[in-house]
């Protein structure tokens, strides 16, 4: 089981999440750079060679790494970060009940206010409902210099210093995260389903539109781009369509326009890059399992 969602047991929801997860994975994979990956592999080989006392092998590995990095620099002169690995994760822990969400929000605010960060952290974690893409990036600004410096140190017969330099370079890989809010994925799915049945089934169309508004509100309450003025505009647009459906007006055009607007909002929110944990030193994990 690749992903787990606590709150949306129905299989239709699971399919939508899985579809979006797949999309996120494909997008992230297509952004990976093979030269950057190769440069990291060569760095590791150089470290191993140093540890085995094989300075020549280490130097060759560093030459190959530098070669790859030169290609990268030539190809992306303006790029600071080059993606070399990704992880896509579904994290859906937030309650669907607005009262429960409000309770967690309020408790988290109080905890942070009194500097009880451990409690604040645990509470805020329970407001997560997203497909998260974490990308590990090679920093083009600093990494190539580190390779050159390590090679220089090796030439000067300072293998320990060279090894430290390389390890430090590996530890400067930068993680960036993007989140696709799950409530927005559901809202979009509801809009698509409503579009399909708008002409034939007024009651269910209205139910789907209402659910889309609920999911929109949930995304906002969970803090996903909560200050964005477009939330209000989208809510108003959905309400307008609800009115048109009730009045049995033609809704094809408004639906198409709304879905386009909604998609572009979703993409904008999901493209925001956040820095990840500053230093993920999960040193060990012990499971005492049933």
């Amino acid at each position: 089981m690749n992903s787990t969602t606590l709150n949306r047991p129905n299989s239709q929801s699971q399919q939508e999440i899985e579809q979006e997860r797949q999309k996120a994975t494909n997008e992230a994979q297509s952004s990976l750079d093979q030269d950057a990956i190769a440069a990291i592999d060569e760095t590791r080989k150089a470290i191993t060679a140093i540890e085995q006392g094989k300075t020549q092998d280490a130097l060759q590995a560093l030459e190959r790494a530098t070669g790859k990095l030169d290609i990268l620099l030539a190809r992306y002169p303006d790029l600071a970060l080059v993606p070399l690995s990704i992880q896509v994760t579904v994290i859906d822990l937030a309650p669907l009940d607005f009262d429960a969400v409000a309770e967690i929000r309020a408790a988290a605010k109080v905890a942070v206010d009194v500097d009880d960060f451990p409690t604040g952290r645990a509470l805020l974690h329970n407001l997560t409902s997203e497909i998260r893409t974490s990308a590990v990036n090679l920093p083009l600004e600093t990494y190539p210099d580190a390779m050159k410096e390590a090679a220089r140190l090796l030439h000067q017969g300072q293998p320990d210093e060279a090894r430290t330099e390389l390890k430090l370079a590996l530890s400067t890989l930068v993680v960036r995260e993007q989140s696709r809010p799950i409530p927005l994925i559901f809202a979009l799915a509801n809009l698509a389903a409503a579009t399909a049945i708008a002409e034939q089934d007024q009651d269910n169309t209205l139910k789907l539109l209402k659910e889309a508004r609920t999911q929109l509100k949930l995304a906002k309450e969970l803090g996903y781009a909560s200050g964005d003025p477009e939330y209000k505009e989208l809510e108003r647009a959905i309400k307008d369509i609800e009115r048109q459906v009730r009045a049995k007006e033609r809704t094809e055009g408004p639906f198409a326009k709304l879905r386009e607007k909604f998609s572009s909002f979703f993409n904008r929110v999901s493209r925001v890059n956040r820095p990840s944990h500053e230093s993920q030193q999960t040193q060990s994990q012990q499971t005492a399992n049933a």
Partner: protein
Amino acid sequence: MNRYHRFFRGLQVLLVGILFSSLLFIAPVHAVNSAAVSPETLNQVDTGLQQEIEKERQQATAEAERKLDREAIAAIEETKKAIAAIERGKTKEAIAALERATGKIDILVARYPELALIPVEAQVAIIDFAPQDLNLVERIRNQVKSAVNAEDFPAARELLNNLMSEIRTATVNLPLEKYPDATKQAARLLNEGKIDEAKGVLQLALSTLVVTEQARPLPLVKAHTNLATAVTLAEKDRDAAQRLLEDARAQLKLAQELGYARGDREYAVFDKAIKNLEQQVKARENTAGAFAKLQEQFSSFFNRVSEVVKPGDSSNRAEARSEE
């Protein structure tokens, strides 16, 4: 958002590895072998300290394992077997599994009439993301507050993760108040031929497992180690002993700034006691008695802080479910 972005870009520190809580959900697609990347970045600790941390982790693991209840674990296993049997269309097998689950739970209720939560699974992890620099900690704290005030919870979450420095014990518990009713109800539904409903009730019961967490703050472990080392050096190397005492105070302050029992008055008491010791070491006075007293008090403070049980991150509960 850009503010956070710039802030972290400026730090130029790494980030490879796997977040403890996310481990449970990760779907790696093309991951660099993060185990090979040793993140020797911000919190470099010496070997002695690493040993102390490892010792503390082992102690936490042993304690957590000791608390696990075999009957409760078996009841969960039987519930999972019942779900599996329902999915295979084997109602009788499911009912038999539920009978065994109910039997186990009845024993639990009889054994612990007052207890609400029975531990069935535990995970112990060392999580050390916090910077050692108090100014940096202060900046992150301020950014957390701004993000929470602006209701930017995703950003606040990420920032708060950078204030963690602890050995965390996450425990999944069976709630004795609700769980027995669920297994009985599922058995009744199965007897009535309501297979899907029975499965739903059992899945819901598994999702009501309660996660609690305990955190042993690493700065306090470090402070304690510094005190212990300072004792051994007090007579032979006054300068080193003083440096260790100073560092112990810094670690104490760091623990407080990271929010571990932040409001506890004993922080001020220890700060003062360590300062007094520093003076005594400086004045070449006999410090054996004062050190022993301080260490004892500190141990008891550490245990008290570490015993606090908080509601946990429910991703652990998800793990329990995903094993179905």
